[in-house]
C-alpha cells in the first residue's frame, strides 16, 4: 500500500479534528475532536513506521509501540476530561465553551468556579 493513502487519510482526520476544536461549542464534541486529531497522529505513526522499517534489517517498531502508549494515555485523558465536563455541567448547567469565560480579563475575574473552568480549558 502506498504511503500516500494513510497520509492523506490522517491529514483529513486531523483537519476534521482541528475544525471541531476551533468551531464546535459543545465541550464533549470538542473533546471528541481532540481524539480525532490524536488518532490522525496515531495513524501517521503506524504508517510511517511500516514504511521506514521496510528497508531496515532489524527494527524495534518504535512508532507502533509509541502508538500503543498514545492510545493508553488518550484513554486516561478522555476519562479525566469527561469527568471535568460532567462536573462543570453539574455546576453551571451548561457545557457550552463560549460561556465558560472565567479567565477573561475584566472587573470580575476569578470566582468560586474559576478552577473548574481552568481545568476545562486545560483539557480542551
Amino acid at each position: 500500500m502506498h504511503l500516500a493513502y494513510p497520509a492523506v487519510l490522517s491529514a483529513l482526520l486531523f483537519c476534521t479534528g482541528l475544525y471541531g476544536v476551533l468551531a464546535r461549542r459543545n465541550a464533549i464534541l470538542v473533546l471528541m475532536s481532540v481524539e480525532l486529531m490524536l488518532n490522525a497522529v496515531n495513524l501517521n505513526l503506524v504508517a510511517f513506521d511500516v514504511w521506514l522499517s521496510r528497508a531496515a534489517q532489524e527494527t524495534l517498531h518504535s512508532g507502533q509501540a509509541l502508538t500503543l502508549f498514545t492510545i493508553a494515555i488518550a484513554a486516561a485523558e478522555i476519562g479525566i476530561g469527561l469527568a471535568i465536563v460532567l462536573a462543570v455541567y453539574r455546576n453551571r448547567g451548561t457545557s457550552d465553551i463560549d460561556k465558560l469565560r472565567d479567565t477573561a480579563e475584566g472587573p470580575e475575574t476569578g470566582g468560586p468556579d474559576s478552577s473548574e473552568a481552568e481545568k476545562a480549558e486545560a483539557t480542551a
Partner: protein
Amino acid sequence: MTTTALAALVPLLPFLGAAAGLLLGRTAPGFVRPLAVLPPLASLVLAALVAVRQGGGQAVDAHTELTPTGSVPIELALHIDGFAALVAILVAFVATCVQIYSTGYLRDDPRYPSYAALVSLFTSAMLLVVYSGDLIVLLVGWEVMGICSYFLVGHYWETPEARAASLKAFLVTKLGDVPFLIGLFALATDAGSFRVTRVLGAVASGDLHHPTLIALLLLAGVAGKSAQFPLHTWLPDAMAGPTPVSALIHAATMVAAGVYFIARLLPVFEASSAAMVVLAVMAAVTMTGSGLAALAQDDIKRVLAYSTIGQLGYMTGALAVGDRGAAVFHLLSHGAFKALLFLAAGVIIHAAGTNSLAAMSRMRGLRDRVPDAYWTMTVALLALAAIPPFSGFFSKESVLGAAEHVVTGSTDHAPGAAGWIVLVAGLFTALLTAAYATRLWLLAFRGRGAEAPDHGRQPLTMTVVLWVLAVPSLAFGGLAYRSLPGWFDGRDLTPTLLTSILSTGLALVGGLLAYGAWQRTSALSARVPAAPAPSFEWERLQGEAAAHPEGDASLVEAHALAGHGPAYRDLVRTADPGRLLLGPLYRPAAAGFHLDAVYAALFVRPVQAAASLVRFLDSAVVDTYVRGAAALPRLLGAAVRRAQTGNVQTYVSALLAGTVVLAVAVVLVAAGA
C-alpha cells in the same frame, strides 16, 4: 580563687540572675524573688572580698585578648584600684537593698519578674563599668545602663508621662553618648590603646596631642549620664519610674557612672586646664540651679531628683579641682543617703497616697503612720544638708576643702579659677540644700489638716531596708574619712576648719530661713480661711488611694502619678515656704528654669520641621518618579490584557496561526538555503 576570678564573678552573677529571671519569670514565678535578691547579695559579698584582698594597695590588673580587633586592640581587662573596689561595694549594697525593698514595694505588680531582671542587669552593667580596665568594655556597660534605664523608667508605660520620660532619658543620654564615643576613639588613637592603665601612662608621658578636645568630648557623655547642666533635664522627668528604680539610678548606678568615669581618667582632664574650668562652671551652674529648682518643686520625688543633680554637681566640682578622692568619697556617702531618701519617699508616697508635698502638708499625723520612714528620712535629710556628724557633712567638707586648697594655691592640679567657682557655688548650694531639705521635712511631716489616710503597716522588707541604709548615712563619713585616703590617692579628706564653719553656718542659716518662711506661710494660711479648699479632683484622688488600703505600694504610686497633674494645679496656691524664699524666681524654678521649653524651641521643633520637610520630599518628589516609572509598563499591560477574552477556542486559533506561520517560515528558510 584568685582575686581576678572573684572580681570577674561580681558583674557576672547579677547578669546571670537577670538572664535566668527573664527566662524563668513566666514558667516558675516561685524562683523570681530568690533570683532577684541572691545574685546582688552574692556580688556584695564578693565585692567586699575583692576590696579586702585589694586593700587599697597596688591596683589589681588582669587582661585577656579574646580576638584581634584591628589597629587598636580591645581587651577584656580588669583594673581594680581602691576607687573601683569601694564603688563596687556601694553599687552591690544599694542594688541589694533596692531588690529587697522591691519585693515588698512591687509585690502585686504583674511585671515584677521582668522588672527584677532589668534591675539585676542594670546592676551588672554598672559593676562592669566600675571594674572594667578597658574603655570599650566600659562603654558596653555604659550603654547597657542606658537601655535598662529606658525600660525601668518606662515601667508604668500605661501612663503617658512614663512613656515620655523613658524616651527623654534615653535620647538625652544618647545625645551625650555620641560625642563620648568619638572622644573615646580620639583618646585611644592618641594613646594607642583602650586600656585604662596605658591611657594613663600615655597622659603621664605627655603623648596626648589633643587633650582639650578629648576632655570636652568625654565631658559631653559624662554630662548626659551624670545629669549635669545642660543635659540634666532627663533626671527630674525620670521620676515617672517606680521609686526603687529612682533610688537605684540616683544612688548607685547610671548617674554615678559619669562621675566615676572622670575620677578614673582624671589625669586626661587635668591635662587641659580649659576642660577643668568648663567642668567647674558646669558643676557650679548645676549645683546652684538645681538647688533653686528643688526649692520650688511640689513632687517629693522631683525635689529629691534635683537634690541628686546638685550633689552630683559637688562631685564634678571636686573633680574640677582635681581631687578625685573627695569626689568618690561624696559619691559613696551620697549613694547611701540618697538611696535611703528615695526608699523612704516611696514609703511616704504609699502612706499618703500622693506624691505632692502640698497635699502632704494638708495631712496631720503622717509621721505617726510611717515612723520608720520618718526617722530614717530625718537622718538622710540631715546627711543631705551636711549637718555634722552625719556622713554627708564629711564628704561635702572634703569637696569644699579641696576647692579651698586650690584657691589658696597649695596644689597645682587645677586652675585657681576652677577652685573659686567651685568654692563659691558649693557654699551657696550648702545654703540652698539645707533650705530645701528643711522645706521637704516640714511639708511632709508637719502637715496640718485632715488625718492622714491609714494604709496599714508597711511590709517588713521595706522598713528593714530603711534602717539598714540609715546606718551608713549616719556613721559612714565620720568613721571613714581617716582611713579612706589610704584607698584613694592619699590626699587628706579631713574637714578644714574654715570651710566647715562656713558651710555648716550657711546650712543652719538655710534651714532656719526655710523654717521661718514655713512658720510665716502656715500662720498666714491659718489666718486666711479663703485658702482654696481641696478640690473635687483632689478628693477623688484621695478616695482612690484610700480604696486600696492593703494595695500594693507601686499601685498607689501609679495612681498618684496619674493624678498628680490636677492635684498639683489645685494645691499649688497653698502655703509653700519655697514661694516666700524664692520670690519672683519661684515660677521659673518650679518649671526647671524653662530649660525644656528652650530645648523644645531650639532642637525639638527644628527637628520636627526637618522631618516634615523630608516627608514632603519623599511623598511629593521621590514618589512621583516611582509612579512615573510604573506608568509605561502599566500602559503596555493594559494593551496585552485586551487579548484575554476567556474563550479557549480563540486561544487555540491563535496557537494554530502561530504554528502555521512558523512552519511556513521554516519551509521558506529551508528552501532558500
